[in-house]
């Protein structure tokens, strides 16, 4: 793994205009991520995890601070920061293949020939094990399969950073486990830089190199960062009895449910 600093979230704060005056959602979020690193953002809902991701994606503009990718500031969306959205966000009128094609054409037109693009689309769909159903419409495939296509679409853009916004949050537990295993497998091959938002502690520990734990909003910021130095490839069954796995897991749980317990939950 290279240790070059690739993405820097530098002193980011954001305020949203509301009828009751400005609302400060994030306060001084500061994080740098190395190339090939898998970082999870975890925190209670409403703590601004998604806001951080949206700022990196360029969908929101930070009120102060900024995001630097490979030495250049980014303040608008682009395919170099592909997003896997929580609810797949596939275009329902296009087949799985066409959904990926739309992204591939956008990124590689002029750089790849038609045949190369076709091959690349099929390669990415087979990477997420969707090559058998690539001409089906999103309405004809299951939730997990839709999310696979969403991941294929993001991977096909060859992004510098892959942003995942609770990618498996809407799936049932079994499908989620399958998807996590797939992601581990894909990640071991491609070694992408990934930022993933999750509220699932096991998911965070299983997949990440580092877990960024966020404090509750308003004016949320990074509470603590945890290194996950478990060896790869990781296997969920083997890890179940692993001491350091359980130790890390416990630390995250303690942070979330003791130190950052939500006020309404405490009541």
């Amino acid at each position, binding site marked *: 793994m290279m240790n070059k600093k690739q993405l820097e979230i530098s002193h980011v704060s954001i305020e949203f205009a509301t009828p009751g005056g400005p609302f400060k959602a994030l306060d001084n979020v500061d994080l740098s991520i190395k190339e090939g690193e898998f970082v999870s953002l975890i925190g209670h809902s409403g703590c601004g995890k998604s806001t951080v991701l949206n700022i990196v*994606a*360029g*969908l929101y503009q930070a009120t102060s601070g900024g995001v630097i990718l490979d030495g250049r500031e980014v303040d608008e*969306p*682009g*395919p170099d*920061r*592909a*997003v896997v*959205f929580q*609810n797949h*966000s596939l*275009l*329902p*009128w*296009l087949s799985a293949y066409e959904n990926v094609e*739309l*992204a591939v054409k*956008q990124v590689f037109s002029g750089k790849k020939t038609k045949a190369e693009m076709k091959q690349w689309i099929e390669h990415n769909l087979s990477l997420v094990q969707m090559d058998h159903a690539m001409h089906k*419409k999103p*309405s004809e495939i299951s939730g997990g399969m839709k999310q696979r296509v969403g991941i294929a679409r993001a991977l096909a*853009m060859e992004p510098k950073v892959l942003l995942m916004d609770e990618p498996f949050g809407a799936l049932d537990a079994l499908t989620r486990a399958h998807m996590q295993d797939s992601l581990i497998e894909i990640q071991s091959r491609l070694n992408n830089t990934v930022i993933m938002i999750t509220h699932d502690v096991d998911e965070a520990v299983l997949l990440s190199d580092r877990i960024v734990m966020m404090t509750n909003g308003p004016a949320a910021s990074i509470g603590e960062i945890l290194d996950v130095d478990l060896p790869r490839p990781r296997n969920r069954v083997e890890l179940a009895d692993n001491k350091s796995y359980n130790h890390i897991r416990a630390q995250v749980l303690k942070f979330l449910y003791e130190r950052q317990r939500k006020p309404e939950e405490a009541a």
Partner: protein
Amino acid sequence: MVNTEVFSNFKNTVTIKLSLLPKFTEIKWLDIFKKAVNSLAVPLIALTVFLALWAAGAAQIQTSLGQVPGPVQVWEQAKTLYSEHREERVKEAAFYQRQEQRNARKLAKNPDAKVKILSYTGKPTFIDQIATSVFTVLVGFFIASLIAIPVGIISGLNETIYKALNPLIQIFKPVSPLAWLPIVTMIVSALYVTDDPAFSKSFITSAITVTLCSLWPTIINTTVGVSSIDKDLLNVSHVLRLNWMTHITKIVIPSSIPMMFAGLRVSLGIGWMVLIAAEMLAQNPGLGKFVWDEFQNGSSNSMARIMVAVFAIGLIGFALDLAMLMLQRRVSWDKNAVLR
């Protein structure tokens, strides 16, 4: 002994299975029968009740033109109107044949003779009036859609343009076609001056009136459809950095098609209603003029003939709506959507 026992057991199961078979088919037939009752019998009963109430009610009312016609008289007049149409066609064919023969004789005598070719000037029949009206409404509606869909898309995409257009739309939307009609007539008369008109003035006036009234529902619905596109899909478009054209064709239009068609169907319905009224008022050829002429004619059959026209207007309006529905099914990506 053992063997026969097994055999008889086997036989039992076979008979049981066989006896189950007719039951399954019975159930299936029952289902089909129920479906048929639901989809056919219920509307038929309703129709019969309607016809009976109509016949009974009509017999009670005497007007200056005689008794209000019941279903039987109206059906008679529908047949008469059709046979009148056939007769007119026969006359027309005969007219052209005579003209051709006359011209041929003239040319035989003198090859340099100038022959006149006249077109038949018979009275337009009921069927002709239907054809005129349908063609007019389709042209008017087509022009309206050609304007309304792009305007709707643009004002759905751009808040400023929406704010600029909205008051105008809200003011013009409730205007009755009959208020537009004199103005349209005057403007068409002033601007459409040619020696060899491809379309008659009355046709253009009617079509423009239809256009003016059927613009608004499409504009409003398209605007709403475009401005309520799923935010996630817009984010996808941003992340992919789709250019304007791709954004419109791949994201905006497909996702607003259901709303767009809802607007188009309302527009076509309004256009059809508007056209009949406009034809009555302006005496422009079409079904509206047919109704008005029959009213002025005041024969004992007039009311029945007008009722034929009423049913024709209704059936054509229904057919137009069905046609739009079928078009929507063809165009829309969501083949499972329930369309009503």
